[in-house]
């Protein structure tokens, strides 16, 4: 369990999302009426505006859409990694879901690079995520 100074601030819409990451799973709000995925977790389906929703586990895989290399960080927990790659990843489940996270890889990053999620446990109830290339075993 990693000590972290900057932590998510869960509310009633997001507490289960962070709990799932602490438990090693990436979950996304999923509409059981129309099938649309909504991220970040919200109390209404962005597809059909219904509320027959559940936080369902996703495959946790996707493609790098964009990335930056952070050379100057002001986040205390991240300074140790500088310079590090921060990637915006499109989930396989739905093309308009972009989830940012540190990309842990020695390979040269490019658009379309296949990646998978690396859940990180901060506390018993709070998790975070990073990404690594899909070929790295879980």
């Amino acid at each position, binding site marked *: 369990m990693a000590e972290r*100074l*900057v932590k998510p601030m869960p509310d009633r819409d997001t507490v289960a999302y962070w709990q799932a990451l602490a438990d090693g799973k990436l979950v996304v709000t999923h509409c059981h009426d129309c099938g649309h995925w909504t991220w*970040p977790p919200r109390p209404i389906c962005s597809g059909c505006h219904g509320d027959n929703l559940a936080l369902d586990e996703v495959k946790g895989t996707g493609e790098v859409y964009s990335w*930056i290399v952070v*050379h100057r960080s002001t986040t205390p927990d991240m300074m140790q990694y500088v310079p590090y790659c921060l990637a915006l990843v499109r989930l396989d489940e739905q093309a308009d879901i972009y989830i940012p996270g540190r990309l842990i890889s020695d390979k040269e990053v490019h*658009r379309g690079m296949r990646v998978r999620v690396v859940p990180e446990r901060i506390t018993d109830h709070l998790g975070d995520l990073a990404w690594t290339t899909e070929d790295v075993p879980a």
Partner: protein
Amino acid sequence: MSGNGERFPRGQAAIVGIGCTEFSKDSGVSTFALATRAIRAAIADAGLEIGDIDGLCTYGTADSVSPNLLAQALGIQSLNYYVDQYLGGSVSMSVMGQATLAVSAGVADCVICYRAINGRSEIRKNGAGAGPARAPWDIQFKMPSGYMVPAQEMAMNARAHMLRYGTTSEDLGRIAVLSRTNALDNERAMMRKPITLDDYMASEWIAEPFHKLDCCLETDGAVAVVIVNAERARDLPHRPVLIQGAAWGGGISIANNGFDDLAESPARPIADRLFKSAGMSPQDIDFAEFYDCFTYPVLSQIEGYGFCKAGEVPGMLKDGAFDRATGTLPINTHGGLLSEGYIHGMNHVYEAVQQIRGDAAHRQVKKHDVALVTGQLGYVSGYSSATILRGA
């Protein structure tokens, strides 16, 4: 039809006074003091009295003095209208639109729009000095990974634009050089040392693809403007600067489902409404002050507000289209947030008013009747805002 901008009270309110403080790295005073100084200067410029003020509009991220404290200090017994909008540069021009609605509806007679900020000496936007913190709202999904400052978010979108249109670092560098060149003869500007494209390319990485010279300044200072109805404006000392149109609202961020390409300009969702509100098109704009917290948003706005097709800005930069003296669309004539100072966008209004009045001295552009002034693009908050100003 309502909702598309056509019913905006076009040209019914006017900016009649402008005021500012010195722009510096350390004001040595509170944002309260800065705001009162800028307001006093603006009211004097308008030929009015403090007692005429009955509306106060501002915005910020809990880093400035609020309207109720100013009203008490200025002795305003009946504050008829106020806006204290939480958020950053994305709402910088929404307060202008809101003040116009208030004045044209007769809800208030004399509204001040102001922004006071100790952006270098007190609360910095880059998060420096942030100790243990917890990330609230949608920021909670970015901040833990260290994705927390606007430079990083804008750089991510700049990369998407590079991948789609072949935009290069040099293209962004030309915007940095243009801004600095325009600041050289601006007595308000914090940065008056020339830079070259080589200087830009050699400047250190902050969030690759952003160099240090892609990033705006951090500034202490304040700007205030006075807004009254257009009829009253005719009796005051300066050429009235009419608020011809304004739009504020939806933008694009990673948390807005439905956008499948973040290389799209977040100005696009408000651009049609903006020009409809003014009864104008991009061809009617003489010069523009684009919100330039970073270089890339300038490029994205030139596209998004319809001055060219996506991907055409780099060629236009090389051709000098945006140069102050000779370009077809002079931009950021004072040096912008990149080189004049970061008063969170309100300094763009100050400059546009000076230009429209013909008071911009060495910086004066030839055609100076109609200006586009914009707030930040939607990437960070999901909002954008902009106004079109016209000399009466």
